[in-house]
């Protein structure tokens, strides 16, 4: 199930809210757990077993690690952590990467090992990362093992963040699982966050996504440069509003049930270096790799050579995490190289340069990154790149490009402004001006939310186009 669907909004959500709040506190985790299983099973009736298996395995491993630690058997504890990591990565590897591996082996050795053609279990990249963090955190003494399998199951399956993150580390959630308090304030904050996220996904991401998919269908040889640039911009906006909108919905829903998750995006398109971009884009994933790969490998504390090696490893992994295909690996490596360059010499220049220069540099670097991300086949991506620079002789602009530009101008302006903190600041300013008319301010804000909610519903009712990009991860 996805949040941006009529099924979720008008059947699932009202039912789970009523059942959850009617139930006594003691069984609320049980309700969230069962509700989350229904949420997951709706789209993945078979793979729900896989998730339960992963939950059980990590629950047991957590207990083992704790027991070994308490007896001072560090080596055994380490073994248990290793076993948990191997099982999780094994699951992920088998379901996500085996066909990629087989295809490459076949291509390399001329063999013809048949592909498994398994559909990717939804959210597997997210929940395996979450559960790995659990055993590792216990081993490190940063969290205590959960002795109630139900509470642990609730952590893994929790529907708001189950299928597309944010990747909530166990340490963040542990206390909230047993001691959270649902308040009107947090619920209201959740409503705002959720509705804004819904609007970002349904009204903005889907709409600009149509522009991108329309451009993708055009023959690249006859594509003028303007169309190609518009296409890539459209993709960049689609992926940001899609993913950050989904994260907002997840965080908002969490708030409605008394959970507080960290932000996953902080206006990444405002960044002035790639280093900064990756601190503001998909924060929970970056943090995960930093905590569980980069730092354990020695981070930046063991000399420049090791640091460069560590960056390379982390970014190759980040790339391939996004999908079992060479282009994603390349995408990760591309960012790895940029980050190394920034570490080695670029950052001081970027800081000194006028801020628009470093901003343009960052945006262009990210945009060309999206080219690698968007095209699974490298020749296709290169063809598109060629079109962006008029390499096919199709010129800079034609009638179709002008039409695309002026009919999407308003949308593009909204997207540009929406990628910055400007709307937030303007809203704060407006609220300040309306300070004396508090009721009017509140009323206006709520009218805005209702409008976003209703218009999003209208778009969903006419949903000829509602793809969800993040099912691949």
């Amino acid at each position, binding site marked *: 199930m996805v949040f941006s669907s009529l099924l979720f909004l008008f059947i699932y959500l009202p039912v789970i809210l009523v059942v959850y709040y009617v139930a006594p506190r003691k069984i609320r985790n049980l309700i969230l757990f069962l509700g989350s299983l229904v949420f997951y099973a709706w789209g993945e009736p078979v793979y729900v077993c896989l998730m339960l298996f992963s939950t059980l395995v990590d629950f047991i491993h957590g207990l083992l690690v704790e027991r070994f630690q308490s007896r001072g058997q560090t080596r055994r504890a380490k073994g248990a952590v290793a076993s948990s990591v191997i099982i999780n990565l094994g699951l992920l590897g088998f379901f996500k990467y085996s066909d990629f591996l087989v295809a490459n082996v076949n291509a390399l050795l001329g063999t013809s090992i048949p592909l498994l053609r398994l559909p990717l279990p939804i959210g597997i990249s997210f929940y395996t990362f979450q559960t790995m963090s659990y055993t590792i955190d216990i081993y490190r003494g940063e969290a205590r093992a959960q002795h109630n399998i139900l509470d642990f199951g609730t952590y893994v399956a929790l529907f708001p963040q189950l299928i597309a993150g944010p990747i909530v580390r166990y340490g963040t959630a542990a206390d909230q699982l047993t001691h959270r308090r649902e308040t009107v304030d947090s619920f209201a904050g959740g409503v705002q966050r959720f509705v804004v996220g819904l609007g970002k996904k349904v009204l903005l991401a889907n709409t600009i996504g149509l522009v991108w998919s329309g451009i993708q269908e055009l023959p690249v040889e006859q594509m003028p440069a303007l169309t190609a640039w518009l296409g890539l911009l459209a993709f960049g906006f689609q992926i940001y509003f899609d993913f950050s909108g989904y994260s907002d919905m997840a965080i908002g829903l969490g708030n409605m049930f008394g959970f507080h998750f960290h932000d996953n995006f902080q206006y990444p398109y405002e960044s002035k270096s790639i280093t900064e971009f990756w601190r503001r884009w998909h924060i929970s994933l970056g943090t995960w790799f930093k905590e569980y790969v980069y730092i354990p490998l020695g981070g930046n504390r063991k000399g420049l050579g090791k640091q460069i090696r560590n960056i390379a490893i982390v970014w190759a992994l980040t790339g391939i995490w996004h999908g079992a295909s060479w282009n994603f690996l390349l995408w990760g490596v591309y960012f790895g190289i940029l980050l190394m360059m920034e570490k080695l010499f670029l950052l001081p220049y970027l800081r000194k340069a006028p801020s628009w220069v470093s901003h343009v540099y960052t945006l262009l670097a990210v945009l060309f990154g999206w080219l690698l991300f968007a095209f699974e086949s490298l020749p296709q991506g290169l063809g598109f790149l060629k079109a962006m620079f008029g390499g096919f002789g199709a010129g800079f602009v034609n009638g*179709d490009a002008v039409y695309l530009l002026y009919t999407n101008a308003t949308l593009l302006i909204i997207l540009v402004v929406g990628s910055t903190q400007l709307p937030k600041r303007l809203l704060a300013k407006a609220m300040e001006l309306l300070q004396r008319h508090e009721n009017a301010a509140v009323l206006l804000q709520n009218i805005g939310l209702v409008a976003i909610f209703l218009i999003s519903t209208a778009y969903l009712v006419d949903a000829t186009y509602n793809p969800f990009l993040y099912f691949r991860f």
Partner: protein
Amino acid sequence: MKRKQARFTVVVFLVLLFGLSLANALKKDTIFSENENRYLAGKPEWSVARFFDGVFGQEFETYLTDQFLGRDAWVSVKTLAELAMGKRESNHVFFAKDGYLIERHDASELASSYYEKNCSYLSQFIAAQTEKLGMGRVQVLLAPAASQVLTEKLPAYAPGWASRELSDHLRPLLPEGTLVDVQPVLAEAQDSYIYYRTDHHWTTLGAYYAYRVWMNARGETPWQLDDFQAEPLSHTFLGTVYSKANYPFAEPDTMYRYCPVREDIRVTVTYNQEEEVTYSSLYMEEYLSQKDQYPVYLNGNQALTRIRTNVEEERKLLIIKDSYANSFTPFAVNHFQEVQMIDLRYFNGSLSAYIQGEGITDLLFLYGGPQFIEDRNLGKLLR
């Protein structure tokens, strides 16, 4: 956030969420959408197997979308929101000048896998029939889409393919003079009411201009416009393009019939060889009380239509056609003792045997251009 304000937001959200959810849960299913002219999805069948292979889930979501309370109104809201955002189209329909809703036809249609096949079927069929019936007896007329004619009404730089691309491609595949290109004449007349504002078809006036080009191509003299009296059939016609765009402020179209005033032409119409039921009119006015009024012209799309007339020209015209012919045929009727129409989507049987058996003397192949490119039944031409 202050407690009171937070409470207000929560109440507003819950009222909205539960209000809509409950209203939807209590609403009875609609079986048929008049506006979209299709059956809406019903409650899907439950079975464990259907659940586990995901079919049930998908069908259930389609069911929810189709049956959502006030569906048409929601879709209109979306269209208006898109217009407010500066879009000049919705669901592949342009919002054009003078209240016109015009279907968008992308160049990608020319990449249809049926395009080449259909050209080849038509070329073989027309060559064989021209040999049998004689030069000048067989014509091909492909009606351009509104977007290919009303170019001055379209939004600036609106994309789309020109009907010239199809006619230039097809012309050399047909015997010389067979292809009747009506686009220039229609484009010339684009300030007249030659296409519906809310439907993809040409109006009866548009069909009249096409009839004139066709008659001239046959070397015959067409009747003049003042040989007819235009009588309105309906002022409330909202066609297919309206349904697609779902623009609530669309202005309904007027449908006309053009009645000959100089000569008393009488007709007997039978459909699908059911000879016991005959009609004395080309117009089926009972359709005017329905949402879809277009079948008022010759009963919509029938496999086989036979029109006998009191015209004393001993020749029989067969029109192989899609719905563009329905308002065209009434003009042709005045020149033939008998006119038949065959719709290949519903007609099964050997066409050449039928032509021979019926003693057909003249042939017209009349389709909408974009419809011709994507039609899946033209293989039947060679049966």
